[in-house]
């Protein structure tokens, strides 16, 4: 099978890219959401910001 032919370092590059991609995308999405939240939140009076 193809994966048996792959060298170990090559495998690590794929593993690293998978983990890197997931972490970068999640962090970027979280940052974007929080930034949007701050922008909208500033326009709201505090009595309307009762999260939970």
């Amino acid at each position: 099978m193809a994966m048996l032919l792959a060298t170990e370092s090559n495998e690590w590059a794929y593993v690293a890219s998978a983990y890197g991609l997931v972490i970068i995308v999640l962090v970027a999405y979280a940052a974007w959401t929080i930034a949007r939240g701050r922008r909208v939140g500033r326009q709201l009076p505090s009595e309307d910001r009762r999260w939970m």
Partner: protein
Amino acid sequence: MNTDTKGPGSGAGLFRVYPGGTASRGSRTFGIVLAIATAVFLAFALLWSPPDSGANASENQMGEMVRIMYIHVPVANACYLAFFVTALGSVMYLWKKTDGWDLLAAASAEVGVVFTVLTLATGSIWGHIAWGTWWEWDARLTSTLLMLVVYLGYLALRRAILDPVVRAQRAAIVGLIAFANVPIVHYSVTWWRGLHQQATISRFDPTIDGLKLFSLLFGMLVGVGFYVWLMMHRFRLEYAEAKLESKGLDVALAERRAEAMADTAVDTTGGTLIGPKGTN
């Protein structure tokens, strides 16, 4: 505005709101716990758990590539959870007609789309080693791709409708149809591939145990944690936007009434008809 869809309702103490954004003490505490858990998970997944080779290997002999599974499966798991919550929010909105459920469905769909993109990406990376190509018309990959497009359509529909009530109503029905469609698409695509490919592609579910199994389960826990934490922020954002919308409404209503006063004043000076006249 209904906010009861998530957690206890209190504006003080542990849940005191931090000014300006969508964070609260609860979400910050949870975020810190999640960050530590993520670090521990990465250590397990990348360092402490053994590669899938040698004596204890599964039948597929995945080598270091098994580590991709520890992140792919939790991400896929989170995207199913997200879309389940969207469907739940849609059903509850159609039943209860309270805005909170609609906001929950909307927030969860967006988070779900992010997780679905990551599911496809990590699956594709794994596939490039396993199959030698970035994309294979594998049943799971294909049905996941279709699911992604369906929910992109859901989000596009939400953006296209301005009236909040109409938007909630229509989005709820589409959210429900989208979820009902998942099994149909899954089975049709599975049968479609099953008929044509006699050679089985090595599946992504080797038998694993020990540290490998622990890494996978811990990863799923972290994945659900990430979903919950993102949802805390995303739901509050959706809530704040809805609040802002209805806030603008109060202002518009006041302006409209002021306009009426002005018009009436003009009318009296002009001497035209006002109010009820005649027959009662």
